[in-house]
């Protein structure tokens, strides 16, 4: 086990290889304590912005209450939760960002997509927190969507 001084030494002099080693450790640590949508991964303000954007951009097909219509799947409730269970917030971001809205995909911009995703999380009963969902797919790839709140 390294002591604090050796770590500093590594940072200071071991160069890129050593830094990568440490970074690898940090990633492993992050994965070990991966966050889920039950950990407060968006803010209430963000969800409010997302709700307004949803009304403009999404409600025409997915319905004003996210319940879906004949040609568009629900974005709330059991069917939605189970469809996305064990994927990540990043997966959902990617799907919305690359395909929605259908008549102008790619037009929303990452910030609006993350706001809309925050609103969907709120509508599905996931709690708000102090940190907003980042406007970036890789940054939220570590946030797991779990349909059921984990025990403890």
């Amino acid at each position, binding site marked *: 086990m390294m002591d604090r001084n050796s770590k500093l030494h590594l940072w200071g002099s071991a160069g890129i290889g050593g830094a990568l080693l440490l970074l690898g450790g940090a990633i492993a640590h992050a994965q070990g304590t991966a966050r889920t949508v039950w950990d407060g991964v968006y803010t209430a303000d963000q969800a409010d912005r997302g709700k*307004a954007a949803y009304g*403009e951009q999404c409600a*025409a097909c997915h319905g*004003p*209450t996210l319940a879906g219509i004949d040609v568009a799947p629900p974005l709330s409730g*059991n069917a939605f939760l189970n469809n996305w269970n064990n994927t990540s917030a990043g997966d959902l971001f990617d799907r919305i960002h690359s395909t929605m809205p259908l008549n102008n995909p790619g037009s929303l911009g990452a910030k609006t997509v993350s706001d809309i995703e925050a609103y969907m999380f709120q509508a599905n009963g996931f709690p708000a927190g102090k940190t907003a969902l980042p406007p970036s797919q890789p940054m939220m790839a570590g946030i797991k969507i779990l349909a059921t709140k984990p025990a403890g």
Partner: protein
Amino acid sequence: MKGFSRRGLLASTASTFVLSGLTGGGRAIAAAAIPANTTPHPDTEWRHYAADQANTRYSPLDQINGTNFNDLEIAWSFKTDALGARKEYQFEATPLLIKGRLFTTAGSRRDCIALDAATGELLWMHRLDEGQRALNSPRQLSGHGVSYWTDGTKERILYVTIGYQLVSLDAATGLPDPEFGTNGVVDLKRDFDQDIDPVTADVGLHSTPLVVKDVAVIGAAHTAGDVPEIRQNVKGYVRGFDIRTGRRKWIFHTIPLKGEFGYDSWVAGDAEKAGNTGCWAQMSADEELGLVYIPVELPTGDETGVFRRGDALFGESLVAVDIETGVRKWHYQMVHHGLWDRDIPCAPILCDIPYKGRIVKALAQPTKQAYLYVLDRTNGKPLWPIVERKVEAGDVPGEWYAPTQPVPTKPPAYDVQGVSIDDLIDFTPELRAQAVEFVKNYKIGPLFTPPVMSKPGRWGTISAPGVQGGTNWPGGSYDPETHIVYVYSKTQPSVVGIVANSDTSVSEFPFVHGIDGMRPRKMPRMGAESGGVDFRPPPPPPPRPGQKAGTFPGFLTVQGLPLLKPPYGRITAIDLTKGDIAWQVAHGETPDNVRNHPALKGLKIPRTGRPGNLGPLTTKTLVICGEAGFYTNEYGVRGAMLRAYDKATGEEKGAVYMAAPQSGSPMTYMLRGKQYIVVAIGGGNYSAELVAYRLPGRA
């Protein structure tokens, strides 16, 4: 390829890639690439969306059966990511199989493709880049597939583009038929008995053309009408086109003109101003009787009928018209002045059934409301009595309420209808008690309980089946040997509340579908200008007794579990020789959030099924249907199962893994001694794919 360049192809509006058998002049002989069958098993075909014009989705094949279903392997798969400018996740097509070639639409641009049915190899692709016209369409993505026509020599593949154009292609080459329309294309927004903008008009279609004799019958679909932006939307007339020339042969006014049959069923003046009333479902046809059967949706306003007062024919009616002239022979209205969005969503199944000692030319219509309506298809008369029953009126000012609704006496409903305390979740007494408290905030009652004005403490009517059914667009399946209909349905209720609207920039309707306290949001038509984007946050939703912060009225769950008891998805076998249910099974493994729910720990819960839109396939011995939605299996892998049931008993005979849920209904064929099952899958984070299964061994 001669003269081929990617730039050249992209620059043109229409392109066909021909990938095999190219000969001089760019013509292809794709069919020649398919080897002859030298086995004792004759090849079979699948010439219509649901097998035949009767929409049976039936094949008598039995190489794949209950003893070997679990041995199925993936013969090939075809990912559609490269078709269109982006991936698609909602691949609803069922391909056709003719002479060893599969034909379907696919991809986010709805390209038309031909595949080698033994290998999945791409033979040709036709692409029409319609620009803004397609982006404005109310029906995006790949659609339900294509149709086939032949006179014995010529072979044509027909499909409707996203931008609502009818295309006719040479089946061998994928090249447009120069004798059809203008260079193989008919603009469906013209010659429509109404003047509409070709780029922005709110009309499109997912369904395949119905090909019958030498006519292609085309329906119409529009933006959903929960919060209709305008009153006078496009009218969804149905037309028949000459399949050789593309010339319009006839038009049927689904909203009758003054002087036409049905006009008097509207309160004066409403018919002229109403729109929608399209046929977005598949249709059926009986060449012998010379009739096309057209399932019609509601006029504008899915849950509010203030601008379509009266029974308003042909809303939510099945209409039989003459194949050659479009003249109405009979109609049957299944819901009078509907307020529940119960558009007839799928084709009626044509069936010749024994009834009181004779064979009746009948039809069986699956519906969102989970009744199978059985009518004599020669005259539209019910086989078993359908009686008019008094129904409750709601409290929406200015609404017109039908005093009665038609209720079939047989067969019985095949899914939950209406909501009573008995229908509520009952895994534990605690959950039931919470559900009982929960529904005190809503109006509940039998089928046809009207939508009501939404207010705190009574947010709306819980409608079961919900606005998406019951059964939806895939429709059912039918075994002509045993006269049994197999139909999938989901138990997924909706809240139908009505709110006042005074903002005509949101909707011209004074009342719209919504929840009190949630300002009605503009539900723009796809073709509308989106100007004036309003990003002001709406007011927070009102608090609800017993409701956790962060969740809203209209969200029908108790502790995150579905409000109603399972099954959430089921397949029902309905014996038309008796008008009774033969068997019913929950279809689909129990959803993850139910299996893992802490409140259900230690309880043994039978398989619940999962909700979605599914079409089953019937073969000699099996009913075959993939699951809706994902679940996580015992290996921790997400996916869905393709399941097979003994069609006589409903006993499960096998299941094979699919990487994603069934998104388009399966079909089957025999090719060079091997039976294949082909199904479109996709959804969630898994993009669209066509997957072919067959038994192991030499192909």
